[in-house]
């Protein structure tokens, strides 16, 4: 049985993140900023689309129950410079995905990084930076 690992940990030094305030589409208030969840999962779907790409993941818990997660990234043009593409994932891929989860406890989050079956790591943004002040920096 696949061992399920859902590890929650504080922001670790060196982890690459996208600041929530940099989102081009929606608010970061929905996310538990700074919290991290690592999912060992099986890809069910990779939806390469506006306004955010969505990665469907099945995560099997220690009790054997499967929980379906949906994790988002930025829109395709924002991801291409970091090496992401429509072909980054295929259904059935075994991946390890680090996300920032939503606050309300639902199995949703935004992807910070993903380790692919071949060991390659995709990061979802620039190196960790402090959140800019309201209105400053990269805003929509």
């Amino acid at each position: 049985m696949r061992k399920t690992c859902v590890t929650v940990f504080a922001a670790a030094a060196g982890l690459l993140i996208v600041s929530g305030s940099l989102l081009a589409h929606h608010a970061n208030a929905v996310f538990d900023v700074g919290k991290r969840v690592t999912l060992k999962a099986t890809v069910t779907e990779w939806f390469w689309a506006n306004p955010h790409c969505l990665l469907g993941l099945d995560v099997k818990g220690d009790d054997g129950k499967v929980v379906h997660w949906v994790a988002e990234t930025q829109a395709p043009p924002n991801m291409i410079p970091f090496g992401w593409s429509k072909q980054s994932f295929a259904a059935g891929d075994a991946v390890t995905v680090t996300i920032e989860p939503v606050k309300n406890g639902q199995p949703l989050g935004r992807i910070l990084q993903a380790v692919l079956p071949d060991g390659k790591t995709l990061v979802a943004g620039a190196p960790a930076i402090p959140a800019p002040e309201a209105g400053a920096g990269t805003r929509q």
Partner: protein
Amino acid sequence: MIRHLVALSTAAVLTAAACSKPPAAPAAPAHPNLSGSWVRPLGDRDVGGLPPVNEIPLTPWAAAKFKAERPAAGDNQNFADTTDPSLKYADPNGYPRISLHPMRFKLVQTDDYVYQLWEYNNNWRQIALNVPQDPDPALTWYGNPVGKWEGDTLVVDSVGYKDSTWLDARGLPHTTDLHLVERIHKVGENLAFDITFEDKGAFTKPWTAQLIFKPSPDGSMTENIYTISDELRFRERFLNQKATIPIRR
């Protein structure tokens, strides 16, 4: 016969005149070439932006309107029930909001026009060079920009903006009196847009902002057209929000 002689003589004179001068060397470009692909990269902090709202001299009308909006970002964010016209109706962003995305744009510079082609929503604007501003332009999403060169700086004057757009994702309002003056110039390898905002209905005095764009090595841009179905599909799939109208696949 006489006609032929005159024609031959004229040809000889023209030939001599043409041959008497050496061919002119190509003129040096009068202005910097701003053409290329530019981007405010996702995550970069040294790319400027609009100032905090409390530093913008809002009129009472603008302050009240700003407070009443429900943007998807910023201090008053309410993504689920937003009033953001670009999310609620998929309206074009307007300017300068569209340039604040971490997506590319291209500048295409000709003698008569500079075209700004945004990857976001595949929108574009045309900056007519060396023509007077229209005193009563039609109101449009991206205004009526006219430009002229002042040395190495392209100065763009624009009016004629619809008042239904926001200046940024926080919900910063403006009226149809919005008047922008942009000074576009190179800073090293980067491109700076120094923007002055004037709008007697929304601001008690002019204010400024600077946007910095970096060269984008990849000149190819994607089709990135954002529709209301995209928005509804995202909300349905990610937030489990039911769409109020059918989603086109």
